[in-house]
Every structure is written in structure tokens, then in C-alpha cells.
């Protein structure tokens, strides 16, 4: 299949178009169509994974079509070890989130149209290899997200939607400037990300630093890096469950992916120059996120802040600038997507029953909802990096990577490791342990809910036991990245 990637990117959009043709009263058909399209997308991504040559560091399945030849904008898509895992993650969470929409009852048709656009945007961001194309997909995500939070969200949905939108918008505009600037700075002028990879490192140091900071700012908002993270708790909390899953699982990865795809290979001098600051930010993220999460009273907000904390590992891995750290960083992105995606699904399960997310309303669920307790425990354990579950591998590699470069930072971050444990154990204690708070007993998770979590748990266990499952895909690409930076 020569146009595999184009199919992957635009297939969801096609689904959206199709959904827009279905009369709005046929809700079940709309849902079915959306799910079907996401299943097929996942299927195609599966095919991609099997066809992918994991021994090669090169970009594969490259497609290049001139788009605006006047200024050298091309439609270039391709996949390599860095993006493959994230594409898979997107397709998987996309399907799960499309399935987890029982709570969406208002304007189902619009919901799924926007959702499908969102999918296209996300997949495109990971696959685009032209800076302008990358930017376009990046921005495409914004508006659907704004609506998904703003229309289907919780109490303070509007505030959250605006905040999310403007934070990200400001960031991405800075990126746009950087993209145009880099176009004019490299000779020959080009937006082709692969060509810039070989051209940009020759830029003079000041330009490298400025451009690095501009790109980083944009990615920092998305990742999010302290102090640009305050949109995240609001957006995550107010968004409906499936959207939170996508937000935490995929959207945050876009920023981190950008870091790996653009900041690391393009600006080796700047990366070297800022590596320590980056590492400090990572450690701050790690500790700050865990601490801020610890005192929240809202279950979802705790998970949201824990995402901030986890993204600290990603930053640490990047700051390490060695293959261990970068491998850890990328793996942590994947793992975080899986784990936090699962966490948000679990919060959603509880919210559907309790209609509140206040921690005080829960407790003792271990006895009344044993299946729920099982899933939540596994996800929480994976979150704080219990060895044997996937979270550990990424965290360990990141910490190891940063240790090799900045030992003291690793020591600092290890404080964060303890805090994260405290955080998730507290969650377990407050939600699962203790006497049941409410006289009403909520029904345990049903089959439909468990089926969503099973793949996530299996991946968590699988990657934890045998991380090569993921690492084998990314190793070559990371090696290349290390050689470049």
C-alpha cells in the first residue's frame, strides 16, 4: 500500500464526513460509524507496524507531493521509530475513547464529527514531515478540542476551554514564527523537516538558541512544562471522559514529540546549552506536579496534575541527550498515554456512578467494586513506576539517562519518585480503602467498561515485563537522533 500514511491520516476525516451525512436522530448508527472508522484506522496502523522495518533508522513510507511549490511547502508524510509508537497510541486511544462515549448524550453527531477531525489532526501531527504541514495539523487539533471541552464538558467547561485554547494558541503562534524564521535562515530555503535536520545544525549559535526557545515555548505549553501547565488541570477536569483520555493520552505527547522531532535534532548547540535548564524544568515538573496533585480534592485533578509530574520524566530524558534518556523519554510518552488514558477512563467510570469527583465521596470501593479496584490498582501502580509494569521502564531509563549526564539532577528527581508514590498510594487509600462513604452501592464495572481497560492493562503488563516490545521499534531512530545531537 503506497499511500498507507495518507490513508491513516485522512481516514478519520472521511469518517467525519460520512457522519455528517447521517441524520442526527440515528444516534446509534453515528456511534457505530465512528467506532468502525476508528477500528479500521487502528487496523491500518497495525498493518503499518507489521510492515515497519525496525532495523532501519530511516523515515519510512515516505510520501512527498508538492503542495505550494512557490515557497517550497510540500505534503510530506513519513513514519520512523519516533512517531510509530505514538501513532499506534493515538489510534488505540482513539478507538477506546470512541467506545467510551456512553456519557455523551448531547449533540452526538457534532461530537463525533469534531472527534474525527481531532483524530486526523493528531495523526497528522505525528506523521507530517513538513514544518508547515506539521503546524497545520497541530492547529487543527485546537478547535475540535475547544468545542469538545466547551460543549460537552463539566461545570466550568467554558473557562477551561478558553484557557486551553489561548494557552495553546499563544504557544503555537510562537512556533509559527519560529517555523517561518527557520525557513528563511536555512539555505536553501525549505520547510522539509528532513532537509532541515541536516541544514539547521549549521545555523549560528544565537539563532539556534532563539529558535530553540521559540519551539520549546510552544511545546512547553502542550507538554506542559512548569510554569505553562495551568491549563491542563482545568481542561482535563472539565473535559468529558473520552476527551480527557485523548487530551492526556495523545495531546500532551504532541508537545513532547515536537521536542524530539524538532528541538533535539535541529539545534544541537542550543540543546547542549539549555540541557541543564531543561533537566531542571523536568525535575521541577516532576516534583511540582506530584506535590500539587497531592493536595487536590478532585480525583480527576489529581490525575491531571500527576500527568504534569510524569511529563517531567519525558523532559528529563530529553535533557539527558543520550540514548538511554531519549529512549526512556519516548517510552515514557507511550506509557503515560496508556496509563493515564486508563486512569481517566477509571475516573470516568466512577463519575458516571457518583456524579462527583470529590475524593471525599469515595472510599472503600475495594470491597464494593473489586473489579474496579483491580484496574485502578494496576493503573496506579504503573503510574508510580512499580517495576514489572510499564511505567517503571520509562521512568528508570529517563532517570538513568539524566544520571549519566547530570547526576545531581537525578538525585533531585528521585525525591519526585518518592512523592509520586505517595500521591498514588494516597489515591488508592482514599478511593479504594477505608469504609464505603456512600450508603448507595454503585454497581461494579460492567463488561463494556472492562473491555476498554483490558488492552491498556495488557499493554502495561506486557511492556513492563518485556519493554523490547516497544523499544525495538524506536531504538534505531533514537540512535540516529543521538548521533545527530
Amino acid at each position, binding site marked *: 500500500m503506497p499511500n498507507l500514511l495518507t490513508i491513516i491520516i485522512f481516514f478519520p476525516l472521511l469518517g467525519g464526513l460520512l457522519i455528517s451525512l447521517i441524520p442526527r436522530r440515528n444516534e446509534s448508527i453515528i456511534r457505530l460509524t465512528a467506532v468502525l472508522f476508528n477500528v479500521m484506522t487502528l487496523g491500518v496502523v497495525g498493518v503499518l507496524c507489521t510492515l515497519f522495518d525496525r532495523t532501519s533508522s530511516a523515515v519510512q513510507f515516505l510520501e512527498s507531493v508538492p503542495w505550494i511549490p512557490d515557497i517550497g511547502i510540500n505534503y510530506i508524510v513519513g513514519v520512523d521509530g519516533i512517531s510509530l509508537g505514538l501513532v499506534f497510541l493515538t489510534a488505540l486511544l482513539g478507538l477506546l475513547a470512541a467506545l467510551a462515549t456512553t456519557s455523551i448524550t448531547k449533540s452526538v453527531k457534532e461530537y463525533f464529527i469534531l472527534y474525527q477531525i481531532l483524530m486526523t489532526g493528531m495523526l497528522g501531527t505525528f506523521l507530517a514531515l513538513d514544518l508547515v504541514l506539521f503546524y497545520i495539523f497541530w492547529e487543527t487539533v485546537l478547535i475540535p478540542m475547544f468545542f469538545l471541552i466547551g460543549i460537552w464538558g463539566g461545570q466550568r467547561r467554558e473557562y477551561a476551554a478558553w484557557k486551553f485554547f489561548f494557552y495553546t494558541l499563544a504557544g503555537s503562534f510562537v512556533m509559527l514564527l519560529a517555523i517561518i524564521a527557520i525557513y528563511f535562515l536555512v539555505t536553501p530555503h525549505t520547510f522539509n523537516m528532513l532537509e532541515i535536520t541536516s541544514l539547521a545544525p549549521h545555523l549560528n549559535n544565537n539563532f539556534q538558541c532563539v529558535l530553540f526557545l521559540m519551539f520549546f515555548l510552544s511545546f512547553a505549553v502542550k507538554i506542559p512544562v512548569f510554569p505553562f501547565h495551568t491549563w491542563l488541570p482545568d481542561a482535563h477536569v472539565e473535559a468529558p471522559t473520552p476527551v480527557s483520555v485523548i487530551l492526556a493520552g495523545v495531546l500532551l505527547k504532541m508537545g513532547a514529540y515536537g521536542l524530539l522531532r524538532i528541538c533535539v535534532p535541529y539545534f544541537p548547540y542550543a540543546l547542549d546549552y539549555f540541557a541543564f535548564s531543561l533537566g531542571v524544568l523536568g525535575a521541577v515538573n516532576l516534583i511540582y506536579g506530584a506535590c500539587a496533585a497531592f493536595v487536590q480534592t478532585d480525583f480527576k485533578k489529581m490525575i491531571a496534575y500527576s500527568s504534569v509530574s510524569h511529563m517531567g520524566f519525558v523532559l528529563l530524558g530529553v535533557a539527558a541527550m543520550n540514548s538511554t534518556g531519549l529512549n526512556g523519554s519516548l517510552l515514557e510518552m507511550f506509557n503515560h498515554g496508556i496509563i493515564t488514558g486508563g486512569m481517566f477512563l477509571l475516573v470516568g467510570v466512577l463519575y458516571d456512578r457518583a456524579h462527583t469527583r470529590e475524593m471525599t465521596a469515595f472510599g472503600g470501593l475495594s470491597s464494593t467494586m473489586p473489579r474496579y479496584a483491580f484496574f485502578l490498582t494496576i493503573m496506579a501502580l504503573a503510574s508510580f513506576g512499580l517495576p514489572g509494569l510499564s511505567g517503571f521502564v520509562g521512568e528508570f531509563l529517563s532517570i538513568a539517562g539524566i544520571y549519566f549526564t547530570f547526576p545531581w539532577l*537525578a538525585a533531585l528527581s528521585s525525591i519526585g519518585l518518592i512523592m509520586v508514590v505517595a500521591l498514588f*498510594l494516597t489515591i488508592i487509600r482514599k478511593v479504594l480503602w477505608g469504609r464505603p462513604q456512600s450508603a448507595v452501592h454503585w454497581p461494579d464495572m460492567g463488561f463494556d467498561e472492562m473491555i476498554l481497560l483490558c488492552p491498556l492493562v495488557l499493554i502495561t503488563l506486557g511492556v513492563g515485563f518485556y519493554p523490547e516490545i516497544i523499544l525495538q521499534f524506536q531504538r534505531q531512530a533514537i540512535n540516529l537522533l543521538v548521533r545527530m545531537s
Partner: protein
Amino acid sequence: MVKYVYLIPIFPFLAFWLNILLGKQLGRLSAWIAIGASLLSTILTFGIFFGMVTANVHNYTCSLGSWISINGQTLSLGILVDNLTLMMLSVVTVVGTLIQIYSVGYMSTDIRFTRYFAYISLFMASMLALVLVDDLLMLYIFWEGVGLCSCLLIAFWHEKPAAAAAGVKAFITTRIGDTGLLIGILILLASGHSLRFTDLGAVQGSEVLMTVAALLIFLGAMGKSAQFPLHVWLPDAMEGPTAISALIHAATMVAAGVYLVARSYVFFIDHPLALHTIAVIGAISAVMAASIACTANDIKRILAYSTISQLGLMMLALGVGGYVAGTFHLMTHAFFKALLFLGAGSVIHAVHTQDIHQMGGLLHRMKVTGITFIIGALALAGVGPLSGFWSKDEIFIALWQSGHPVLFAVAVLTSFLTAFYMARVIFVAFLGISRRQQQIHESPLVMTIPLIILAFFAVFLGFLGAPWCINGAFQHFISPAMHEVIHMNWGMVILSSILSLTAITLAYLIFVKGFRLPSSGEQYFVCFYKLIENKYYIDEIHEKIFIKPFHQLCSLFKKFDCMYIDGVIHAVATVTAVMASYIRRWQTGRIENYLFYQICGIFILLMVISGKLCRIF
């Protein structure tokens, strides 16, 4: 046979999944699945044990495949079976199996019966794997695994807030140590060393860095083995089911710290500073915990502090080079401490209280439990010729030979205190008159049989290491390089016998005869007593130094988020909005203003063009 060694942890692991996934359907069968699995492991262990001993093989390594590669090193899941491993395997499987059998009775009425056995199977699997693996990182992985099981089992009765809190506390406190261990591993990794235990002896590198690594690894051991100042979780961990306390918090998991030090002993040997630290920490823990145990009233807590103290002794022994002594005491302690806990459990099961002052005269009502408990207590007190006597002797000898008089004195004091508080328990709880009206029955057979078996071990296991009996079989087994003949050190035997007898007598005088100190000494003693009774205020200090600042930091961060970061964001929005509403007012709706703007605009442009303003740009 030894090549099937990897099956040892697999059996309980399968039992775990079976129990956790099919718990409801299995019902009481789950217990027997767990027990069956650990019986299989036990049989396999002993098969391998005898296979290796008869073939005179001391070492077996194999790799089960690579796991991950870091910094150019491929870390693989490897297995190392040597005599230390075999000893630990035997202890864990035997004690584990017995305690599981005991648990069938002890937990019979619990609603989460199957989950209990699931967790315990998981624990067995992790613990056995921990013992088997051949490098530090793999050890770390299972190390965390046992920590998790410990946490889950402590909080098994999570409806009790204290139990839930204790579970969390246990995990976090040990995690502090574990993080140290992790950093220690990273230091070794970063300097390009292999993490395999067999290669640890050949570690080269900057002395300071390697000493730090060794200390950090020991930090991990401190956490697990509840050594001062990370010991605070262990007494609280007594909120868990007593069988768990016996298995995890007395016999096996807490001993993993000692095991870790013993396992990487070749590494510690090269770094004397680290070794000294181990000895000092061990000594502090030993005497501190022993003194607290003298004042505690909760039978389980007494045993918990006793565990800390005994583990301290083991560390102390290891720290002064008494490798054999440390490991020997580890083994004997596992059995008699498990016995004591199970006995305590049996008592609690019967009287529904843990306060020793509410017990009394139990020996008459619960013959088997009473007698086995007393056997255990005597073993712990170091009364010859029970097992504790021999291992404690070894420690004394090691200390004496190392030539550290203070440490030796500490060990003697600890030993004295140990005998004293165990005698106290016996006199208050088991002898004397009953303080309760209710009927007290002996526990069922399923609980008492393990007690009897353990009592058997508590009595006779010591002879393995007794110099006059089979010529110090244990010593030669655990340290195959040693060839000299072990001699009886009669001085030590006499010393420790006198020590324990004096302590018991003292306890008898105080708790049975009601002997009191003269009032002149009382004042001074009360202060001291209060300090000890409050556990030297270590919990409070922890609270002040770590927990409270942490909470304050958290609140601070939360506030920082809401007020400062969001404040800046909102300020930007507000400034824009205010500017907007100001600029909007320029559109006054009056044409004369508009015309004025126009003319002004033209004038300003004129000024710009006449070169006055355009310089700026």
C-alpha cells in the same frame, strides 16, 4: 534439576493470577491453590538443595534472556543459585508454606479470603524471584514487588483507617530506601560496571563514588530491613493480619535487606566506611528497638520492635565482617520469629486483644500455643541450646573478634534487653492469672500444626551451626571458601547464658514479684522511661521534618498555581480587556472627534516624514 530453578517463583505467580482473576469462583479452594503452589516450590527447592549439596556444586548461573539495554550494557534476567540462595529459598518456602497453612485457619472468617491468598502468592513469587536473580536491577524489580505486597497486605483490613495509613506509610518509607538503592544502581551503571552480584567484587572506580554507591545500596536495605531511622513503618505494619506480620515483617521480606547486604558482601568488603556505617546503624537499631520493646504493651509491637532489634544485630554482625554470623542469625530468626508471631496471632485470635496486660494465664487455656510461644521466646532470648542461642553466639564471637568493644557492648546490652522483654511477655501474658472472664479456646489444628513444626525448627535448627554438632555444617555451607575447623567458644557460651538468665530473673522479679526501683532512682528513671515509651519521638521528628514540610510545600504549590501562574495569565487577559475597553472609548460617536483624529493623524505622519520620528525605526 537445578535448571528448573526458575519454576520456583513461577508456581506462586500462577497461583496469584488464578486467585486474583477467578477469586469468586474458587472460594476456599484458593487457599489450597496457593499452598499447593508454595508446596511445589518447597519440594523443588529441596530437590535442588540436595541435588547441589550431593553433587558438591556451589554455584549455578543461567540467563533467561535479555531485558533491556542501557548505556551499552545489556541487562538480562539471570539466575544465580549459590548456597546463600539455597538457604534463603529454603527459609522462604518452608516458612511461607507453613504460614499459609496457618492462614487457612487464621483468615477463615475473612470476607476477602481469596484475595488474601492471591496477595500472599504474589508475595511468595516476588520474594523467591528476589532471592534468585543475579543482578542488582532485577533484584530491585522484585524488591519493589515484595514492597507492594507488603503494603497491600498491611492494609488488608483497609476498613481500619490505621491499617490503610500503615500500608501507605510502609510503602513510602521503604520507597525512600529503594530510591537510594536505585541511585546506587545508577552509579554502578554509569561507571560502566556490571550489576551482577558475582562481578561486584571486581568493581573499580573512585573510592568516594563507590562508597557512596555502597551506602545508597545499604539505604535500600535499611528501608526494607527497618533500620534506624527508616524503621518507623514496621511497628505500624502490625495493623496487618498477624500471619502477614509473621511471614513478611518477621521472617522473609524484612530479612531481604540483610540478604541484600550479604549478597553484595564482596562489594561492601571493599569499602570499609560503608561497612562501618552498616555496623553503626545496625547497633543503633538493635539497642533502640530493644529498649522500646521493653516498654511496649501491644504484643505484636513488642515482636515488631524485637524484629528491628534482631535485624539490627544481623546488620551489626555483617558490618563487622561476621558474614556467617549474620546469615546464620537471619535463618534462625526467621523461624523463631515466625513462630512467635504465629503464636501471638493464635492468642489474638482467641482473646481479641493485643494488649499483654489484658491477657494472662494463657498457658493453661492454650497449651500448644503457649508452649510453642515459650519455646520461641526462649530461642529469641538466647537460652541454650535453642537455635537463637547458637546464632547469637556467632554474632558475639564475630564482634569480639572484630575488636570493637563498643559494638560488642551494644550487642550484649541488646541481648540482655531481648531476654528481658521476652520474659516480660511470657510472665505477663502466658503465666500468672487470667484477667479475662470469657472462654478462651485453643486454636484449630490447622493453626497449631504449623506452630509445632516451627517450634521444632526453633529448637533444633541452631545445631546446624553449633560447633560441636556436625562440625559447623552451616558455616561451611554458607561460606564454602572457609576450611578451618570451628571451635566452641566457651567464654561466649557462658556469658550469653548468664546474660539471658539474669534478664529473665530480673523480669521475674519485676513482673511477677512486683519489685520496684528505690524511689530516689525513680525520678530519673521516669524521664528515661517516657522517652522510650514514646519511641524516642522518632515518629514525631519524622512528622516535623518531612511530612509537615511536604504538606506545606504541596499547599504552597497549589496556591502558587492558583494565585501566581493563573494570576499572571488572568492579568494578561485583564490588561488586554482593560486596554480594549479603553481603546473602544475612542470611538466616541462624535464626528468632531473623528475629524480631529484624522487631522491629528495627518499631522503626526507629517512629523514622521520630516524625519523626526522615523529615526526610531
